[in-house]
């Protein structure tokens, strides 16, 4: 039995709860799809990494772009992060007359957390976005298909050097961030806040272990691999002209930035 449809009836108001649940479901579905896609791409990239020909020129171009190109902004971010952190912790520790702890606090926070997270964010912003738009444009203008028809594997030619560059260069940038951050922290603590240089150095040396620096470097490698992979994944699978490339880049940026914080927690837990 079917009821006659009253076409003049006002449209039913959209059910806000239903819409919210549907929206959440769609987002979760897309998330699962993306994670699956990333895993598949990672396996593909690994497979083509170990297969000749090895494209050293492409790799060095990407190492230069991701690493050398990001060095200045990472160093500046490092210096100011160290300075801000020293300023704030000196203000806090002054209240308890324990300025001696400023050095170790700054050093541990920078090496374990700030250096990998901020370096990866800077690389995402600068190199990840460029990678994603470049690959996306190549995809929508059929340059990727052209590679394939010329019997050159696009994963090997385009993606392997970019993903390797992320994996190798972000830890290097983390080291640079460590050095710049500690220098900035020392400068503010000792020269501005008046903490004694001897105390700062000896306490930092006492508290800061090689494991702390290693933790930052391991995180840097994980984040570097992740952000390069996301940029490649979104760009490589872009479709729908200029608008599609823009959308892919937005998604890549959001997915990279959020992923860095999620991974940061889990890598931290696994290491300790």
């Amino acid at each position: 039995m079917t009821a006659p449809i009253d076409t003049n009836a006002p449209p039913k108001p959209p059910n806000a709860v239903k819409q919210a649940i549907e929206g959440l479901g769609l987002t979760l579905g897309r998330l699962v799809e993306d994670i699956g896609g990333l895993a598949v791409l990672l396996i593909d990239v690994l497979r083509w990494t170990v297969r000749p020909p090895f494209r050293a020129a492409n790799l060095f171009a990407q190492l230069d772009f991701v690493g050398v190109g990001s060095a200045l902004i990472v160093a500046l971010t490092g210096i100011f992060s160290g300075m801000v952190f020293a300023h704030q912790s000196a203000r806090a520790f002054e209240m308890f007359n324990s300025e001696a702890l400023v050095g170790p606090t700054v050093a541990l926070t920078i090496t374990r957390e700030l250096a990998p997270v901020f370096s990866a964010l800077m690389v995402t912003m600068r190199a990840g976005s460029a990678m994603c738009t470049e690959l996306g444009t190549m995809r929508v203008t059929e340059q990727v298909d052209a590679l394939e028809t010329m019997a050159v594997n696009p994963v090997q030619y385009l993606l392997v050097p970019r993903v390797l560059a992320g994996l190798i260069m972000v830890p290097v940038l983390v080291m640079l961030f460590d050095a710049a951050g500690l220098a900035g922290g020392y400068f503010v603590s000792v020269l501005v806040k008046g903490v004694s240089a001897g105390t700062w150095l000896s306490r930092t040396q006492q508290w800061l272990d090689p494991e702390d620096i290693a933790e930052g470097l391991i995180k840097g490698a994980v984040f570097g691999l992740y952000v390069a992979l996301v940029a490649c994944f979104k760009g490589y699978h872009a479709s729908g002209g200029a608008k599609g490339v823009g959308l892919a880049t937005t998604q890549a940026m959001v997915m990279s930035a959020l992923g860095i914080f999620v991974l940061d927690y889990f890598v931290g837990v696994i290491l300790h």
Partner: protein
Amino acid sequence: MAAADQTARPMIEIVDLHKSFGSHTVLSGINLKVPQGSTLVILGGSGSGKTVMMKHMIGLLKPDQGQVIIDGDDIVPYGAVQLEQLRKKFGMVFQAAALFDSMTVYQNVAFPVLEHRKELSEAKVRALVKEKLAVVGLSGIEERYPADLSGGMRKRVGLARAIMLEPKIVLYDEPTTGLDPITTDSVDQMILDAKRHLGVTSVVISHDIASAFKVADNVAFLSQGVIVEQGTPAQLRHSTNPALRAYLSTWFDLERRS
């Protein structure tokens, strides 16, 4: 339907090709022969399956059923390594040329040779690039970037790149779409010249009737996943097939009126 030269060995032969994407059938039983050294134009409207058919020829897609015989070998069972070898027999000219925009014209044209014939000296590569650019009627633009070239020039560079490895077959994907009449004419001439100078077998995908009739030895008209008519341009003009007549009338009526 008789083709222009049936005595030549077919360079491309497609037998009973079927392809669906999910529940959407794109090709249902394609049979086609392209004699060596001839030019086949595949004519059809948007969404008729032209591009899908071309992708089967170069092994970018696998058919659900049927054979694709290139130069005497069925390529359907080919794996990745064999497909890579197969693709060296092909040159492909893309709709928007698909030149690498981060590279100069020289680097673009030299690319296939630098990838696949590493034994050549730089001087040899340079000479080869010059020679292929001359074939498509260009010179002195080696150091320019694709963005600095006109649409017609880009297509010529695309062809120069496609013929670098001396392919037996050149595929053109809608070579005249979106070009002005003068440039269209020069691209048609380029296709004819390539055939004459290089003796390649060409397959052109097009919905441009005028251009198709100019460059083709044979025309195949594709509609709703089947080839409804194939033959020489003259034979097609006198076809009684209603779908083909409706398609051709869009151009030939126009011709009569002017």
